[in-house]
């Protein structure tokens, strides 16, 4: 479309007189703006189109809108930067663990269960002086349990890991998981892992004491028991007996390797 020619669209029909070429001239003279980049391009486009008469905006309204948008962008960016800075400063200063840190650490409960030798085992008293990683699972679990245990096995076998870390695997399926079955299952990962069981009622109570989600059978479409829905978190207690942090599924080895030496030193 030629410059100064009125476009045939309806919006420009509101303008009776065609736009003056002076708008173009003033743009060329005042092309140096205190702000640049996209804003300047948009304004330039607006003013060119205005000069052509294809958009019904005045120079002032375009400039005002652009300035407002520009100020808004700058403010938002500054706010974001401030939040990020504050977040980073806070995380480095306050967070000790990469896992889910517990705001108010609670003392580890000390229920007595049955270990894989068939002997009574007090979860806290019999692991005194060690960091404890407590996990509620079942031996026929297809995914979460074996992955957690394999990760822990790999991590604890790394050189430089503190020796005072105990993994306590508490079954949530006592009917299937006899002490022998648990031992066989745990031995696939480590012979050092401690397996615990008890009566159904005791195990439900123990899960409640640890504030874990109580495991329940998940039904399939036919209403039959298919597998067991259970808490996927590993509850980590320092040697001082306080539950400092928790590790959901999935937790990567880098996280474990960073956190466990710190946890083991909190006496």
């Amino acid at each position, binding site marked *: 479309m030629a410059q100064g020619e009125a476009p045939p669209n309806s919006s420009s029909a509101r303008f009776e007189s065609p736009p003056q070429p002076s708008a173009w001239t003033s743009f060329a003279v005042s092309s140096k703006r205190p702000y640049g980049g996209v804003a300047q391009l948009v304004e330039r486009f607006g003013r060119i189109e205005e000069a052509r008469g294809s958009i019904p905006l005045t120079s002032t309204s375009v400039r005002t809108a652009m300035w407002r948008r520009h100020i808004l962008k700058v403010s938002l960016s500054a706010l974001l930067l401030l939040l990020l800075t504050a977040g980073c400063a806070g995380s480095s200063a306050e967070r000790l663990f990469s896992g889910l840190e517990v705001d108010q650490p609670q003392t580890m409960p000390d229920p007595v269960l049955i270990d894989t030798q068939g002997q009574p085992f007090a979860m806290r008293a019999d692991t005194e002086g060690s960091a404890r990683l407590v996990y509620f699972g079942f031996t026929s679990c*297809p*995914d979460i349990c*074996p*992955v957690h245990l*394999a*990760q822990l*096995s*790999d991590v604890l076998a790394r050189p430089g890991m503190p020796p005072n870390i105990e993994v306590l695997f508490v079954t949530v399926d006592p009917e299937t998981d006899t002490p022998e079955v648990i031992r066989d299952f745990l031995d*696939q990962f480590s012979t050092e892992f401690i397996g615990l069981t008890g009566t159904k009622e005791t195990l439900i109570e123990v899960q409640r004491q640890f504030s874990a989600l109580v495991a329940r059978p998940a039904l399939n479409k036919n209403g039959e028991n298919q597998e067991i829905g259970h808490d996927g978190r590993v509850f980590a207690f320092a040697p001082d007996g306080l539950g400092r942090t928790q590790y959901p*599924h*999935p937790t*990567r*080895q*880098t996280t474990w*390797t960073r956190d466990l030496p710190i946890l083991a030193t909190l006496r």
Partner: protein
Amino acid sequence: MLCLIVPYFVSQRRAPTGIANGKSQKRFFILGVLLLWLATDWPLGLLGASYLASAHMLQFLIYTMAVAPILLLGIPEWMARRLAGRMRLYRLIGRCTQPVVAGLLFNGMLIFSHSPWAVDNLRATQFGSFAMDFLWLIGGLLVWAPLVSPIPEHRMSSYPGRMAYLFLALGVVPAIPAGFLTFASFPLYAIYELAPRVHGLGATTDQQLAGLVMKLGGIPIVWGTIAVLMYRWSESSRGESAGVQPPKRSVSPSGDLHQSSADPDQ
């Protein structure tokens, strides 16, 4: 698989008259498709997509070092020309199969497709997994084209050039990600680290195995091909010095198809 086999045999029936359809080419093509199936389907496909980094690497090796060159050897010249012409890809293929471009594209693809970001995101979905397999196949076809392209003008002519290209494009750069995988102290790929273990194979051990597969798996193919090229080069030099025209090395039996090398895109 059917998308490859059916058009191949249908177009074989529509071959230009006077051109013999080489049996060896058909065999190469079928072998290529079988290897593609082996690398894509259960169990290797499943293990590579979700469980083992080493299986993932073996898949990569089969796609790029075996399937791609064998498929190229199985495509007759007339079919490649017809395909490139109909899809208006002749010029693009010509540019992409220039040795430097092909080498850069393949190694760029290799580094991208083995980055933790790409593996963790693409392998997480079936479509992403397919995209990665497809990327490997295209990368393999590109990198082998300067050596065994069915279109003669896309092939490199000098033996030393081919050997140098093979070494640089397929032997040097893969050592970098292979080194990272072998010597990393932690598993790099979350998808394999957090998958249930297969036969008790630890995530770090599996990754180290993947690095070794990447580093060592390609050696027999690359150096075997270099040895063959060297032998042919010596044969060709001997023939030239004896004043006898050496037998023309041709991967395509349709060398008598005197088509113009003019750009069929136009």
